[in-house]
């Protein structure tokens, strides 16, 4: 399965290019800060509102802060939040989904009604309120996003587990006396890994969007720490005089999201069991 999926992924040029771009973005986000000549909050009143130049590749903002540095740190914020939120999603979604699907009966019913309500509740409202409770900060944001985004994965895992648990090889496992834990972790879950990876790869840009949306309405990471959403809000204020302050954050953010989505598309096609 893995070799076939990998070969199929490699045949999709757009997905491979996006994958390379994603790796570069991750490197930029986590290694970039050490290479930058400026910090994200280094104020320089002698160099405010500068357009792109050799010294400041993407120009400077209203306080003379280097926009490139702020973009790199925004990317880091987005990535940290997204990966943090996705790990919560992974643990909660797989645990709840596998439990509901494998146990069936009353446990299944209870867990699924709970996900129904979570589904009906607009997760964005929940995010805003959780952040109001826990305070603004990187950690609280990814916890809030993680707590609201596991529902979809839980439903997917449950459906897959239901499909797989009646197959012969699982029955063989039962017959050989494997424990429930072994059945779930060794027999069933490895077969659900494909759909899980695909969901997660779409979850990352989704979490990034939520993070910057929260920061757009003033509920994201606390300033002066940058985020794409905060940069866009700031840039919009000065757009008529200094458009570079708005253009770069939006453009870089858009390409980041596109790269993740295209890579996700490639992964989805690669793991699609329908065409062999």
């Amino acid at each position, binding site marked *: 399965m893995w070799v076939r999926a990998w070969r199929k992924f490699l045949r999709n040029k757009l997905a491979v290019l996006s994958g390379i771009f994603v790796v570069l973005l991750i490197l930029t986000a986590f290694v970039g800060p050490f290479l930058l000549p400026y910090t994200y909050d280094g104020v320089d009143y002698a160099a405010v509102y500068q357009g792109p130049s050799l010294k400041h590749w993407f120009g400077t903002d209203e306080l003379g802060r280097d926009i490139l540095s702020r973009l790199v740190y925004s990317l880091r914020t987005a990535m940290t939040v997204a990966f943090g939120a996705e790990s919560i999603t992974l643990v909660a979604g797989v645990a709840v989904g596998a439990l509901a699907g494998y146990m069936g009966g009353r446990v299944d019913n209870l867990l699924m009604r709970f996900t129904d309500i979570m589904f009906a509740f607009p997760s964005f*409202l929940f995010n*805003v*309120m959780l952040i109001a409770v826990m305070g603004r900060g990187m950690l609280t944001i990814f916890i809030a996003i993680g707590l609201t985004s596991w529902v979809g994965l839980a439903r997917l895992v449950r459906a897959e587990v239901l499909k797989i648990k009646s197959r012969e090889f699982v029955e063989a496992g039962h017959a050989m006396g494997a424990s429930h834990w072994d059945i779930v972790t060794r027999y069933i879950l490895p077969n659900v890994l494909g759909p899980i990876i695909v969901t997660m790869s779409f979850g990352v840009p989704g979490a990034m969007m939520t993070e910057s949306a929260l920061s*757009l309405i003033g509920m994201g990471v606390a300033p002066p720490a940058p985020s794409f959403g905060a940069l866009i*809000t700031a840039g*919009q204020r000065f757009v008529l005089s200094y458009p570079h302050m708005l253009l770069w954050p939006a453009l870089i953010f858009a390409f980041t*999201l596109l790269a993740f989505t*295209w890579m996700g598309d490639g992964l989805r096609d690669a793991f699609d069991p329908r065409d062999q």
Partner: protein
Amino acid sequence: MLRFLSRRLGFMVIALVFVSLLTFILMHMAPGNFLDAKRISSGDVSGDEQASVDVIAEMEKRYGLDKPLYIQYLTYMKGMATWDMGPSFQFPQMDIQEIIAKAFPVSLTLALFSVALSIIIAVPLGILAAVKQNTVWDYCSMFLSMIGNSIPAYVLAVFLILFFSLKLHWLPTAGWTEPKHVIMPVLALGLGSVGGIARYMRTSMVEALRQDYIAAAWAKGGSFTRVVLGHALRNSLIPLITVVGPQLARLMVGTVFIESMFRVPGLGSYFTLAANTRDFPLLMTSSVFFAFVIMMMNLVVDLMYGFLDPRIRFE
């Protein structure tokens, strides 16, 4: 039918109670409240301690914050049930139902205009993509759906601002006082949904064109207008409701960010403000109201689906 409706409405009530409870609990777990913020901002901390304590006690009494929590909760719920929520913290001169009555039509206008815009563009595009597969129309709809799926409305809004305000000087960058102000928020919200709806339209049109009765219609010598726009379109529009409905609900939430970007005084702006300033009554009402609108929309979509397609039975 009646059983279906009563079960759905019952579920909605339970979900709304859940939402209100969650909001209430989260609200009261939050460190600090509106009055603290007020005290700090008015500089009373260093001044006359006793006077400010008295004022706070007085205000707490007026807003019922001195009562036990369950009484406070029940008061909120009673207020919402009778549509009389009392004044908000932030706007003491206005009752909350007045704020909602003023702000909700604004958000609804945005959402309805954007849905209308996306349908007007998406349906013809979807038909063209289905009839002329693998042509420029097909790729155009694919491109738009990709953009719409991966780039949020507030980022699209940036490119619209750069184009219409900076480059062409046609539209103001933000505000909500003249009709001109409606254009960019609606474009930003609507364009994102065009691709998705067009792709869906294409799929269901392709499906409809494969049916026997369409072959019969062609065989009888029906024109393009008659066969495609008369017979096939009618049947391919039904599944469209399933995407447009959730889209409308998504737009309602999406308006929160677009409203904040374009400074539109809609429900989303008030919700954000309420959360940022710990305006408990306003936050409580707006979050329950949001949830109510979204669930109601989903229910209406399900009902319409059944009315339009007689093959569907409610159970």
